[in-house]
């Protein structure tokens, strides 16, 4: 009887132990989890960065007829500003003396394009002239400027001062005796080679006031692009997974003072034409920190990816959910969205309105946009 009891107890215990140890879930190598992702690459576009030329007068110093010492400036790729204004300055090459240009003849050319019946593009320019302009805030991706002025259109530039630098600044308020720290465009006579026509450089010119660590010297430059051409090639990737869109990209110049990087998504209509733009937001550092890089033009908000020398941003990222973007909260999410753009935008323009300065662009695949 005792043996039977022992065996019964032992058998029950063994059964219980084995049952506890075993699982009906056998090993499988792979187990799908969550939504499918769709990815594509961000590629550098033709950028449409701020650019132009400056044609200097023949005489470095004032000629006998200063009114004929013409300075011709062409500009393109400027963002329209909601605060502040674009202001032109004459300066000597060492940038120790500035004189604001106060009387400019401004020719604004807006170039619209349509398709004719044959499907060929037709460009329709609309020209507007303004005279006696001292500053302006117009801009746009299809707007070009021609500024005609002369040496004597500035005040405070002595006859013996050499006119070797043309500077475009953004003045948040009434201009003072010298440009503020936002000096994104400039041309120097010495940069024109054998001609008097210097391509404008985009970046940060000269030392900010007060000077900051890492700034260029008083007459030095931090060049992001020369006549719209960057010497650095960013790259990246966009991936959409369910409601989430993530862009991870790298290899950027730090933004010029007064600028920041942001991202937009472009929605198409049923014919594949632009329908709407959605602001994806200011760029951040990658996971896990995801710190805003809005202030990377002046300070270093994320030292792990923002470098002082060279002045580059090693990596940036965006992560958004359609839960916070009603226009993209469709079924499926991101339906009809065909492009993702990484832009460089002026802090003086309207945030959330896509400007002309697209750096990288990704064409979302059909698997995302739905057609």
């Amino acid at each position, binding site marked *: 009887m*005792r043996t039977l009891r022992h065996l019964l107890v032992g058998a029950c215990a063994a059964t219980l132990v084995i049952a506890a*140890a*075993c699982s009906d879930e056998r090993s499988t190598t*792979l187990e799908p*989890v969550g*939504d499918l992702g769709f990815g594509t690459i961000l590629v550098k576009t033709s950028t449409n960065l701020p650019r132009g030329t400056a044609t200097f007068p023949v005489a470095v110093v004032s000629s006998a007829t200063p009114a004929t010492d013409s300075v011709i400036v062409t500009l393109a790729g400027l963002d329209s500003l909601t605060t502040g204004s674009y202001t032109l300055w004459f300066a000597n090459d060492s940038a120790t003396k500035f004189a604001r240009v106060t009387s400019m003849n401004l020719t604004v050319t807006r170039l619209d394009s349509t398709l004719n019946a044959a499907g060929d593009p037709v460009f329709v320019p609309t020209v507007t002239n303004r005279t006696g302009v001292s500053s302006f805030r117009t801009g746009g991706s299809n707007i070009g400027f021609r500024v005609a002025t002369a040496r004597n259109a500035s005040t405070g530039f002595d006859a013996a001062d050499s006119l070797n630098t043309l500077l475009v600044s953004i003045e948040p308020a009434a201009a003072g005796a010298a440009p503020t720290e936002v000096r994104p465009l400039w041309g120097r006579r010495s940069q024109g080679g054998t001609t008097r026509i210097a391509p404008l450089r985009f970046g940060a010119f000269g030392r900010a006031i007060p000077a900051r660590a890492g700034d260029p010297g008083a007459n030095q430059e931090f060049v992001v692009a020369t006549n719209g051409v960057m010497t650095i090639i960013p790259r990246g990737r966009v991936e959409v997974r369910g409601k*989430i869109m993530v862009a991870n990209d790298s290899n950027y110049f730090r933004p010029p003072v007064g600028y920041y990087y942001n991202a937009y998504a472009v929605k198409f209509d049923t014919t594949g034409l632009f329908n709407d733009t959605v602001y994806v937001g200011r760029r951040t550092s990658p996971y896990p920190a995801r710190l805003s890089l809005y202030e990377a033009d002046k300070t270093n908000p994320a030292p792990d990816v923002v470098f002082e020398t060279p002045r580059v941003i090693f990596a940036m990222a965006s992560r958004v959910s359609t839960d916070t973007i009603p226009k993209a909260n469709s079924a499926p999410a991101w339906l009809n969205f065909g492009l993702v753009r990484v832009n460089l935008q002026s802090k003086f323009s309207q945030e959330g309105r896509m400007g002309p300065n697209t750096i990288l662009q990704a064409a979302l695949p059909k698997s995302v946009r739905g057609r």
Partner: protein
Amino acid sequence: MRRVLRSLALLALSASALHAQSLPKQFSVTTRIGAVTAERSASLEQAALLGLDTEYALTKIFGLGTAVDVSRGNSTKKDFLTRLRYGNASVAGGDSIYYQNVGQPVTTVNISLFGTMRYPSKTLSPFLLGGVGTYVMILDPQVNGKAVRKNDASYTGGAGVWYKLGERVGIQLDVRAVTYTKYDRNLLNPAFGRAELNTPFPEDFPTPPAAKSTALITMFTLGFRYIPGGIGGGN
């Protein structure tokens, strides 16, 4: 686990009338079955266990022995995420990415040399156990695409009870805590080192607990103890 504990209690109650005794100067062999469970950071699922102990009773109280424990369970799939990518991101159409948890069966053999200290009594004979040895983890060659194994030192500590069913047989219940040293959790990830592990959606997947350099493994076993007659000079 609750079922195991319930069975232990049942056995303890039912054994009150039994007469267990220690066996000095004798060998014993114990075959064990049970369950093995690992601490969460080890990323090993609970598994069944087979064990074999051989022990020589130096005295009524102290003994020396060897143990071999074999288990074959699964790695914790949700701790290992990878991506299967189809298509080319640089051409029209982009690519499609399947997010996958990766698991694999893991065979583990733990071999140890242990000492025991028993408290002999007429009913139950509780004991403590401590030992040192080595563990070998053998991973699935098909999943990994190659033979992968890992071995290093292990330390064992445990306690249990033994009672007599007859002159030469008995039942043993024990719990053992085995520490695997120089434990490498990444070894369980067949996709470790692939670029596709860098998922762009880290926030959307649970993060496994921080990996540790050791793994605490707990074994619950039920053993059937057999004492060969006359071996070792005993009765």
